[in-house]
């Protein structure tokens, strides 16, 4: 399921992206002004640097699936928040807000402050 959120935060404060702290590349490819909410099943959690990735299968209206490639912050930053290489596992049902690619292709940037399990539990408890 996918829901567009036209303007998530007021005051011109952009939702921090996974690219924010890593300085691997400019984050301008992601549309910070039009974040979207995704709910789906984790196919893979890549705990790599400079970016982690969540491969997320999202069921579209009509029953078809779209697989999103979602770029996140580096392990060196996530570990401070309690993340580890097995924090997410294939099969986990999650809900998160992402900044999508400007092109509309199924890619985007996720942030650890905007992700939960589908049943409402936080993915990690703050250390």
């Amino acid at each position, binding site marked *: 399921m996918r829901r567009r959120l036209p303007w998530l935060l007021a005051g011109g404060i952009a939702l921090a992206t996974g690219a924010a*702290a890593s300085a*691997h590349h400019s984050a301008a490819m992601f549309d910070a002004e039009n974040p979207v909410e995704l709910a789906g099943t984790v196919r893979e959690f890549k705990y790599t640097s400079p970016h982690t990735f969540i491969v997320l299968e999202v069921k579209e209206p009509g029953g078809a699936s779209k697989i999103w490639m979602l770029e996140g912050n580096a392990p060196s930053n996530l570990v401070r928040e309690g993340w580890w290489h097995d924090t997410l596992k294939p099969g986990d049902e999650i809900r998160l807000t992402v900044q999508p690619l400007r092109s509309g292709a199924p890619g985007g940037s996720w942030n650890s402050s905007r992700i939960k399990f589908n049943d409402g539990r936080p993915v990690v408890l703050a250390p």
Partner: protein
Amino acid sequence: MPVRSIGALALAAALAMPTASLAFDESKYPDLKGQWTRAREPILGGGQAPFDPSKPTGRGQQAPLTPEYQAIYEANLADQATGGQGNWQGGKCYPVGVPGVMTLYRAMEIVITPATTYILIEHLHGTARRIYTDGRDWPKQIEPTFDGYSIGKWIDEDGDGKYDVLEVETRHLRGPRAYDPSGIPFHEDNKTIVKERLALDKRDRDLLYNQMTVIDNALTRPWTVLKKYRREPAVQPIWHEDICAEGQALIRVGKEEYFQSWDGYLMPIRKNQAPPDLRYFEPGK
């Protein structure tokens, strides 16, 4: 006296002499051990940590660029606004290089030895800066690198017999480099000189300052910024591996960047972005 006997006497005399002491007196140097990270300060204007942490990102940096290089910077910002990378090379897994790497997008370790101080940072590529403190002169010929060639000097500023400041000068840099992810450019002649003064805070010994001054032909004047680093409290910190080729989805083809899909194919980044140029592929094959 036969030569052999003189040689034997000389050898015996040499063996009898105490060996020259090569002891490294650690107490003369500031304690810079441990893991250093960028001091947690708000990033003014949002986005990624800029070169001058006291000013907002992007144009807010007020980089003293010449009109020619300000125009290059503006063209870079226009490219980034539509999803491109502009002048920032990190997306191609190029090293950030000096001085940008000293913003500490990743943690730093400092290792002091008598002749060389090493600055180790694993960000996109394993940076191992060597700051030579053995009194050498600049070599006549040197291959330029992203991290440059650094000569340093320890200074005892307060005369207490212990070093307080490490002064560093770095030359022989190569590009392409930018100051920070907003793409502030260096002159294409790569004749940048970077001067640094590293010193611990007098009261907070877990706070390290780095006053950096950049001299570059794309600037109207030297540009000085103050960076602050915080020593992490963990006794056994984690040092993360950073393998750019593994952890990135950006792929550059020609002059365009694309985003790699979950199954390894190219996806557009910009609206209405053209597919990659296949000029070297024979049609129909």
